[in-house]
């Protein structure tokens, strides 16, 4: 018989366990909603998460009205399942930045299912153009549908289905872009840093171009932050907020203004 630790000592660890549970409750909830529920629903319905979201929006939102689509998305993400969109709170910051900047050429990396695309397109001035890059074919198909449902046509929003590291070097040649006024990053957190460096190298960024990156604190992009700190090319700040559709997990959105080499 192996030597047993006495039950009293085991009981003494109870406060530690409680502390951990209470302190990290939001993470547990997130784990449950984002992973367990997703796996369960995938098995039950046989559809992907994005398709389920699309179905919900189709039934609950008014076509041609971006606001109602966004609202439906928010409701679905906070009540039913979890998709890491930018969310309403950080979305407001994004809206404000877009209003101030009123950019004409916008690049979005990571369309996912089109929430942020609709959000950006809604806030753009007349004649502006948004290029949205998505790697996954199925997600892109759904995003396309949602964008069209919101009433944005091909002239305004162009969806590029390719990995971002292939798209960025070809932006100038294939899409005839001269300068990007606004870049929004919300794709793989690991690609933030290489993509930013690629953008710097491509020469598409001019003085005053704004780059906004979501989720720089959670899940977090430490290399990206280190790069912007060190490079000295940007005036930057981090808008502190909480993770989308969750109260207790802190997250931040980085706002960079390209200054060029001085």
């Amino acid at each position, binding site marked *: 018989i192996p030597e047993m630790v006495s039950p009293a*000592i085991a009981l*003494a*660890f109870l406060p530690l366990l409680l502390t951990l549970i209470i302190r990290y409750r939001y*993470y547990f909830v997130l784990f449950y909603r984002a992973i367990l529920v997703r796996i369960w629903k995938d098995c039950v319905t046989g559809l992907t998460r994005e398709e389920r979201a699309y179905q919900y929006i189709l039934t609950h939102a008014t076509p041609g009205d971006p606001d109602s689509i966004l609202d439906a998305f928010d409701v679905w993400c906070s009540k039913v399942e979890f998709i890491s969109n930018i969310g309403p709170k950080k979305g407001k910051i994004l809206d404000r930045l877009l209003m101030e900047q009123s950019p004409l050429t916008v690049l979005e990396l990571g369309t996912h299912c089109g929430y942020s695309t609709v959000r950006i397109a809604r806030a753009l001035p007349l004649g502006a153009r948004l290029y949205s890059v998505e790697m996954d074919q199925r997600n892109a198909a759904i995003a396309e549908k949602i964008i069209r449902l919101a009433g944005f046509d091909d002239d305004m929003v162009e969806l590029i289905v390719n990995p971002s590291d292939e798209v960025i070097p070809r932006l100038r040649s294939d899409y005839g872009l001269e300068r990007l006024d606004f870049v929004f990053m919300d794709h793989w957190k690991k690609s933030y840093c290489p993509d930013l460096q690629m953008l710097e190298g491509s020469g598409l960024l001019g003085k005053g171009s704004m780059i906004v990156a979501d989720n720089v604190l959670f899940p*977090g992009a430490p290399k990206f932050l280190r790069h912007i700190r060190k490079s000295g090319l940007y005036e930057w700040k981090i808008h502190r907020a909480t993770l989308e559709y969750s109260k207790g997990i802190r997250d931040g959105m980085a706002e960079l203004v390209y200054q060029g080499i001085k």
Partner: protein
Amino acid sequence: KKKRGNGRRKGASKEAGEGEEEMQVRPEKRERGKRRRAKNDQEAKGRERDEEEQTKIKSAKTTKTRKKEKSRKTEEEEGEGESEERNTKRKKKHGSAKKEEKEEDGGKQVRPESLSPEELEKLKEAVDERKKLIQGLRGKPWPMKKKLVTLRESQEFVEKYEGALGKGKGRKLYAYKVMMTKKWMKFQRDFENFKTACIPWEMKIKEIESHFGSSVASYFIFLRWMYGINMILFGLTFGLVMVPEALMGRPYGSIPRKTVPRAEEASAMDFAVLWDWGGYAQYSVLFYGYYNSQRAIGWLKFRMPLSYFLVGVGTVAYSYMVVIRTMARNANESGVGDDNSFNFSWKMFTSWDYLIGNPETADNKFASITTSFKEAILEEQESRKDDNIHLTRFLRVLANFLVLCCLAGSGYLIYFVVRRSQKFALDGLENHTWWERNEVNMVMSLLGMFCPMLFDVISTLENYHPRVALQWQLGRIFALFLGNLYTFIIALMDEINLKREEEKIIKFNITMWEASLYNSTVSENSTAPPVTIHPADVPRGPCWETMVGQEFVRLIISDTMTTYITLLIGDFLRAVLVRFLNYCWCWDLEAGFPSYSEFDVSGNVLGLIFNQGMIWMGAFYAPCLPALNVLRLHVSMYLQCWAVMCCNVPQERVFKASGSNNFYMAMLLVILFLSTLPAIYTIVTIPPSFDCGPFSGKKRMFDVIHETLESDFPAWFSKVFSYASNPGLVLPFILLMVLAIYYFTLAWIHSQKPLCFLFVCPKRGKQEEEQTSSTEGTNGSRGGQKSSLTGCRATKQQCFITGGRE
């Protein structure tokens, strides 16, 4: 000739005085400075210098003629009167300089002079001017560049011509004097630096303060203070108890109480036994049982039992004195705290912690000030609305309820474990595993470690200001530790009673054994030499005092171990993992989930305080405890300094720890009282063991005082003492003491009152004026307000009057 001598003397005294000079001639200097400044603005620098000199000399002449009229005596009186105002050091210097200067004067009067007297005087005046300029330079409203240039030029001038004033022997002496003055000043400065460097760990603490703010530093200052106290306790026990017994007492193996019993001899040197403080460690000066009850030991006739008793009492008395003295000193320093009114002004003007020197902490502080402003504005809004107060109250009550549940649970767990350990002890400890044997200590340490974390989490419900939250947290942990400690003591008391019953049986057995031994020797052979029994074979009692001492030492050791292991795992290992796993992890470990740990001020302070409480409690039965504690504090000073700088991040809400020192002290006082309580109880009520310790054979431990009085002091003294200890005299004396305390408290309160009024009255007056002005139209409660206002003014006047009288 005489006049000139006078003048020279004056000049010389001016030079010698240097610093002292400034005040004497301030009005003139100011005048001249003004004139010079006006000129400086107009003219170029190069030309200016020459002219300036001339004007200076002129003006100096005028002042000199004025001054000449005064007699030497008055001048000297003046000098002395002024020198009295300065601090003693400088006065001394001044005096010595004067003496030297007199000698020089005497030497000069007989020698001829080659330089014409007028020139000499001019030069002297110019040099004086320069010196004055150098001294007053700091206060001049010039640009820094100009100041620097002027300073350099003046210094060069002084250097060049200062030596030329004296001649021959006098000149050398003068140069020597100037050099010595400079050296002395430098020495003083260096000495000041040296004194600062001598304060132990000052630089370390300052560095921590600059990184983490004053609340973390206050812990380390407290730790250092505690270290000082423990050094003195250690000195007392080591110098007056342990060393005399080790050097002059009977050696190891001479009597039973100083020998390892035969049954334990085989394992007495095993590490496991020594680690448990058994074996040779138990039978050494480290514990109570080793000490002999011999009245006087060695050629010094050192009264060992008396010394043991007095040191035991003295350490406690000294601790009381020090704690109370420090509290009183701190109480004077802390001002009238008022966080509620003028909230925004306080925040605006006093929220910065000027000791922060680290950009990251400054960022945090900046962010925290911003958030605190936001929160204060929100709070203000909410207080206007005040609909949420019920929720807050409910949450606070709920939090306290949860904490109480937690406390009760931990108390019950400890009680359960202690009962179980008693059962184990009855079964015989050898049959149980290491886990079971160390269960009590383990559970106590673990609970002491984890429950505060739980409290911390619960306290986020309450939404207090961090300073208030810290005090709540401290109070809760205090209750937890206190409960744990007292459960432990109660368990110990039970064990003491068990041992005493065992002792009774053994005592009876020993008498039987001795009788049988005696009988056998007598019956066998009356002429044979009496059998000498090796002290290791003599049966002996259980010696509860040593047992208590051992328990405390074990507790301290396990506590220390837990602290260090938590530090290494919870802080260091976590920091290493976070730092290096971050390169290959899917989220940001540093900014996100585990992150680095913060320094836990409240937990550490309380750990320190309770540790000290255990030392006070156990030091009487284990004289080695202060030594162990000094060691522990020393190590934890370095370890924690390193850990805090290496693995912790500044607190998210950095706040100032002003006034928290006295809070720590108050807790320390409470703990001191609570820990001396059981110690004194055991000393007074339980008779000492019959065969171990310095008080063996006495009915009570304090009988040693009585014994000393009877045998070491003259008869009249003990008579006086017996009269003095008569209740008829003691009671009035106590009454007198109580009255004196009452008087002093009242006096203190009265002296505090005017100050309070000075703080409160203008404020209240202003508020009420605001109110009256705002409610100009509605005259409902105006009369009342006015009367209260006038009342306040009246009291203010009154307190001014009383203040004046005092």
